């Protein structure tokens, strides 16, 4: 716990005045079969700073962090701790040097309590645990950094945000001076992100250093003292200090080209009604999930449904797609009734549906792209893959899907490419030409490059005259794409406004259930 008191910054390329360099990686190379995940990467962390590693999925961020914490071994390069070369053969060795990583996928035991998880792996535990002392010790660490956790709670009962907090407390309890947080915000809702940022500040105030990994530009600009951008395993830029980080510049460094996420609206006049929902109610297990929902979507129109997750969006999409039957009310697609007729009938009327979960619902992970294209189509008794092959090849080309061809397994696609496969299938029509496209959170978890592509695809589909229902928690996305915005709250539509003139405040308030007061 004395690291901050020591002068370690001997690296020649670090100017005076900066805080001492706590950890430095020089010329790191890491190869995986077929990929150069890190190519001659230099990276350093000063004491008490937040240094962000920014890059698209697959850029090599996690790989670099895993080497800094001792999980992976670099193929070449050196790591210095306070200027002294060190070896990190295991995460335990990393911990001994005060380096800990919070992984994207948590490594907690669900059935243990918070305190048990925190002390798990500590070598110096006595055989018989003194629970009281343990709980107090864990609570003390948590309080120091304003991380509210209940040491006696069972981890399996905690939310994702709370679990992440447990991971952080665990790292701090083990004496981490340098914390590597791998995409910590990916699993958090906005309020939790704010809380996390407060915790990060509390940590840097006491001289801890934080390596923050992310591909979300907005938050990176806010939290970082310095940003290092990775692309395809190479460092493409450093952006020096807080406030200077310009999102456009970061995006260019990250993706390698300019990114345009400007608002897009219908460019043609809208046509006939395609989707018609009348007084739909849905009760599940005695709970009203959807109440009196009525709205239409027209040809060439994109209607956005905004709302905080869990307010009935998923069920609404399932009802339209024929996966759930409404308790009352009717749904028609292209003028024909589709209520209670099941998913295949809905598709025969021209429905296409991109569900929220790509792998596991929209796509079968262990199947090839080709087989996944067949999922929502008519298949003969003997599945005729050969005849779909040319189309699969064409779609991979047309949608710029990065894959080794139609036989590429869905599980091995990145999030963005999986989403493109899903969109390719749903937009290209199967049983009939697509008339109505229902899309849920189409860009969640994607990096900017892929977000731009997906938005363009949706806009193209709208221009081609398809009716689109965009259901998303991402308010920005809805505001910049939808021609009409509906807000769903506790299963009811509580607000409607044209997209062009929608006010962020009013829509946000409606999402929080504050319509009555402000109306």
């Amino acid at each position, binding site marked *: 716990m*004395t690291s901050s008191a020591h002068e370690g910054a001997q690296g020649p390329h670090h100017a005076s005045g900066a805080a001492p360099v706590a950890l430095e990686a020089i010329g790191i190379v890491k190869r995986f079969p077929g990929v150069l995940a890190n190519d001659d990467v230099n990276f350093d962390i000063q004491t008490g700073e937040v240094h962000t590693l920014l890059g698209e999925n697959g850029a090599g961020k996690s790989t670099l962090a895993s080497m800094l914490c001792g999980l992976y071994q670099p193929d070449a390069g050196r790591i210095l701790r306070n200027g002294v070369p060190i070896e990190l053969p*295991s995460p335990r060795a990393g911990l001994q040097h*005060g380096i800990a990583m919070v992984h994207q996928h948590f490594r907690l035991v669900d059935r243990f309590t918070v305190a048990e998880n925190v002390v798990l792996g500590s070598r110096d535990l006595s055989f018989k645990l003194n629970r009281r002392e343990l709980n107090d010790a864990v609570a003390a660490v948590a309080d120091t950094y304003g991380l509210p956790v209940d040491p006696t709670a069972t981890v399996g009962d905690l939310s994702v945000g709370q679990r992440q907090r447990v991971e952080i407390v665990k790292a701090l309890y083990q004496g981490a001076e340098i914390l590597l947080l791998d995409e910590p915000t990916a699993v958090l809702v906005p309020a939790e992100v704010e809380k996390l940022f407060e915790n990060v500040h509390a940590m840097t105030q006491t001289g801890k250093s934080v390596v923050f990994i992310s591909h979300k530009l907005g938050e990176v600009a806010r939290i970082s003292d310095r940003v290092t951008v990775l692309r395809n395993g190479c460092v493409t830029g450093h952006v020096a200090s807080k406030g200077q980080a310009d999102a456009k510049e970061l995006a260019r460094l990250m993706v390698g080209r300019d990114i345009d996420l400007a608002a897009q609206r219908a460019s043609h006049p809208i046509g006939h009604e395609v989707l018609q929902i009348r007084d739909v109610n849905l009760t599940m297990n005695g709970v009203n999930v959807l109440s009196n929902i009525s709205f239409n979507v027209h040809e060439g129109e994109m209607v956005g449904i905004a709302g905080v997750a869990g307010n009935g969006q998923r069920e609404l999409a399932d009802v339209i797609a024929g*996966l759930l039957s409404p308790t009352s009310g009717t749904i028609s697609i292209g003028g024909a009734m589709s209520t209670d007729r099941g998913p295949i009938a809905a598709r025969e009327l021209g429905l296409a*549906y991109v569900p929220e979960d790509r792998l596991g619902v929209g796509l*079968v992970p262990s199947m090839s792209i080709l*087989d996944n294209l067949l999922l929502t189509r008519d298949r003969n008794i003997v*599945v005729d893959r050969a005849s779909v092959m040319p189309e699969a090849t064409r779609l991979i080309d047309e949608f710029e899907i990065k894959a080794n061809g139609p036989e590429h397994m869905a599980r091995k696609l990145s999030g963005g490419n999986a989403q493109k496969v899903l969109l390719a299938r749903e937009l290209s029509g199967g049983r009939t030409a697509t008339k109505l496209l229902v899309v849920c959170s189409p860009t969640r978890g994607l990096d900017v490059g892929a977000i731009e592509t997906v938005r363009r695809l949706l806009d193209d589909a709208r221009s081609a005259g398809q009716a689109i229902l965009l259901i998303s928690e991402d308010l920005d996305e809805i505001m910049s794409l939808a021609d009409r915005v509906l807000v769903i709250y506790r299963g009811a539509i509580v607000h409607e406004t044209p997209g062009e003139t929608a006010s962020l405040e009013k829509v946000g308030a409606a999402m929080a259930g504050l319509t009555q007061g402000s109306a």
Partner: protein
Amino acid sequence: MRAPFRLQFEQRTETPKRLGILVPVVSVFAALIAGALFLLATGHSVGDTYSNMLSDGFFSSTGITDTLGLSTVLICTGIAAAFAFQMNLYNIGGEGQLYVGMIGATWFGLYFGENLPSFLMIPIVLLGGALCGAAWIAIPAWVRARLGTSEIVTTLLLTYVAASLVNHFIYRSGSYFRAPNTMFPQGRQVPDSAMLSPIGDTKMYPTFFVVILLSLALHWMVRRTEFGYRIQVISDSPRAARYAGISARRTTVQVMLISGALAGLGGATLIVGSFQRLDPGIVTLGYGYAGIVIAALARNNMAAVIVSGILFAGLRSGGDKLQISTDTPIHIGVMLQGAILLFALGGEAFRRYKIRVVRTPAVRVEVTA
């Protein structure tokens, strides 16, 4: 004290193709080595025992034909298990379905046999056995599909019922299945028209080839047909199946019925083959349970079941003959079978993980000071 090195498991993103072959082969050898240690410890000759087992099981003309003859029923119960397992339906009651298949086959043979010619009788008896095997799994299939009741428990429990049924039909006096006017309870032999003759001077019956063709056909069906496609979708992600309008319930019932039918067919091949009658001795042989092992060895691949079924049959028949040819107890063969399974399943770890030897350097205790 710390070890100078330790083993680290790294998860593979992809399993290299060659490991698919290498792992089972190495597993068999590792099992043989383990068996050798056991033989040495118990004072038997390793060389003699193994060479006897191999020649009695595989490398003599009677050895290999006996093995192929025995493999017929084992491949049946193997594909029965594999077919259900691939959809994560754990039908471990193939044993019971086999008994009921035998009962059914015998009944069809006794009932129609006198009047019909052989070319009709053989298919009738085989299909009758399959039908009864399917019937025996119908209730587990239905409650699994409707209520989600574990098929592991229901199919296993019904095996005990099936065993009692076999005994009942043999030991109850005046039973339709019991040979009349015999001192000892014994099954009534099916008419000649319901029996196949062995091929030449062997213990192989033409049903062997039927079963091989059936395995290959199922292999093709899983890979190439709409039904196989549905199975793949459901086994990987039931939610994707729902999304695509594929009924998991219906497919669950269908797959389980087919699995039961295949096990039942295994029982019927015994009737038209070497058994010729309902024989209570079947309940000690464990052919149905062996199917579980055979499917696991073949990693539920229908075509690979042919290989693992023959391998298993050879070990078994070679092991059984040990007792006759040498003084080695029969349990050696049984032990080896167990060892092979253990190593083969343990070998899975090598397919899924890369194992690295990491040297642990002397740990510096001081951290930063």
